[in-house]
């Protein structure tokens, strides 16, 4: 078998191992689903009355933002999983085996992607119940979800780099998540960037989260119009920019985390 073939097989063996944990510890999935459902309900019913975006139903506007935030936070569990494996010495065992050097990371990011997929399905049902609809066609609807998962997968590799750097579950639990709060809130996920002061507006417009969210809204027909979309290049080419962001994140963090893994020492 070729090196690439082994990389795929080894990656799948590790993925299966990680999925077994979800199967044996279902609470994990239940609690990672409760939070986004809570967010949908809180924003739809508590903030929904206070936040007005002209020309669009706020609950529909909101869903792309919540999806993106959830997937970004969901990707952060990659850092916890890897830190846990490092701490328990499992990575030492893996590194002493003649397996592909990328398999542990490919396996971890893949199982977290599937985990994210389940959460998104539950959220979609919840969104449909509060009145969210896809107004375009099937192809654009699917393209939206594909973009969402691609973004989640790319975020997992950032998270992998963090997990291999901090080396302890306790630190990963905060280091893996803390930066996501400003990243997801300083964007168009819950508000229109048009409502921000000029310099914050600039930051929020160029925030990759905003590009993904806007791309999803465009693909699903949930977008606001005019200045409420955002400003300048990011507002005009959200899909292209989203794809570029995803590729850029992968180009930097995929090799970086594999390099970290090769040198990873648990203690």
């Amino acid at each position, binding site marked *: *078998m070729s090196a690439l073939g*082994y990389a795929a*097989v*080894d990656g799948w*063996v*590790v993925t*299966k*191992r990680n999925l*077994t*944990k979800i199967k*044996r*510890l279902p609470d994990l999935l239940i609690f990672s689903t409760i939070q986004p459902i809570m967010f949908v309900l809180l924003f739809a019913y508590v903030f929904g009355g206070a936040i007005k975006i002209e020309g669009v139903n706020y609950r529909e506007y909101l869903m792309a933002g919540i999806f993106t935030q959830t997937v970004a936070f969901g990707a952060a569990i990659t850092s916890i999983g890897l830190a846990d494996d490092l701490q*328990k*010495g*499992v990575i*030492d*065992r*893996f*590194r*002493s*085996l*003649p*397996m592909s050097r990328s*398999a542990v990371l490919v396996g971890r990011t893949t199982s977290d992607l599937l985990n994210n997929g389940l959460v998104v399905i539950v959220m979609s049902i919840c969104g449909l119940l509060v009145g969210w609809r896809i107004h375009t066609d099937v192809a654009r609807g699917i393209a939206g979800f594909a973009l969402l998962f691609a973004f989640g997968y790319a975020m997992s590799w950032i998270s992998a780099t963090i997990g291999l750097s901090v080396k302890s579950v306790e630190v990963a639990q905060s280091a893996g998540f803390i930066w996501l709060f400003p990243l997801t809130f300083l964007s168009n996920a819950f508000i229109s960037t048009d409502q921000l002061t000029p310099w914050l507006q600039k930051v929020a417009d160029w925030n990759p989260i905003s590009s993904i969210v806007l791309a999803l809204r465009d693909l699903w027909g949930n977008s606001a119009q005019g200045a409420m979309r955002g400003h300048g290049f990011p507002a005009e080419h959200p899909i292209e920019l989203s794809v570029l962001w995803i590729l850029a994140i992968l180009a930097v963090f995929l090799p970086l985390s594999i390099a970290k893994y090769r040198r990873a*020492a648990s203690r």
Partner: protein
Amino acid sequence: MAGKLSGGRPTLAAVTAAIEVERLVKLYHDVHALDGLDLEVPEGTVLGLLGPNGAGKTTCVRILATLLKPDSGRAAIRGVDVARHPQEVRRMIGLSGQYAAVDEYLTGFENLVMIGRLYHLGRKESRARAADLLERFDLTGAANRPTKTYSGGMRRRLDLAGALVARPPVIFLDEPTTGLDPHSRLGLWDTIGDRVRQGVTLLLTTQYMEEADQLADDIVVLDRGVAIARGTPDELKGRIGGERLEVAVVRRDDLAAVASILKGVGTGEPTVDQEGRRVAVPVADRVAALTEAVRQLDAADVELADIEVRRPTLDDVFLQLTGHAATEETTGGEGGKA
């Protein structure tokens, strides 16, 4: 991959040692974890690396298992350099660490199958091998339970079995019994003696003199990254003295009588500690010596404060070899009292 095997390195026939280590140096923040270590382990033998925490044992194993790069020096497994051809080395080694690196949510069977597949044994072979190893390590009954439910001893056995999955010719055991209760430790020694060392080359690190004595053909004593003594267990014990019978008395007047009785049961001259009211003598057979001593001391109407047979501990080894004690926490409770 196979083409790389003929890359100008010595062929197997020309290599006598399964593990070779030459002037190995590893620095952590300017402190020498290893400071020019040399080792040579012939095929099919067991080397015990004995030393306290921080002596460099684990660093040495980590370098040999390709987990860590040395700063200088050379290490090779069956002639293959670990730093330059790590992936080839990984095909020849099995590692079982001191932290029992098994996945707690997988069953024992699933853990071993996973390791087999990552050695690229194939699905069928991996499953057959896993079932076979579980049987040999007395884990068949627990094969389909997540390892979370295993006892400490069972986890270590499973971890050991993991090192054997691909039948590697060279196996590293890093402190295989640290943290286990005495009963599990004895069980694991049997397992290693009967089922692990058969036909393989084994390098084992330990903090316990007794463990190295039980399992190793040769012992290297490590202190601060250098080897301070080498030899067979018997040679080392000869240098530091074997077991000692120690008697403490209530009345100082009895010391002379005790000394003459112990001279009769021991293999050397007794030493008398007037201040501590103790007499000690080296003995060959601990049970016979203790029985005989108690009988004669009782007949002589000596009132005893304490009597024990002490095995040489790591501290004794260190005091003898270096003049300084091994660190406190590494030697607690290992002085096999009788």
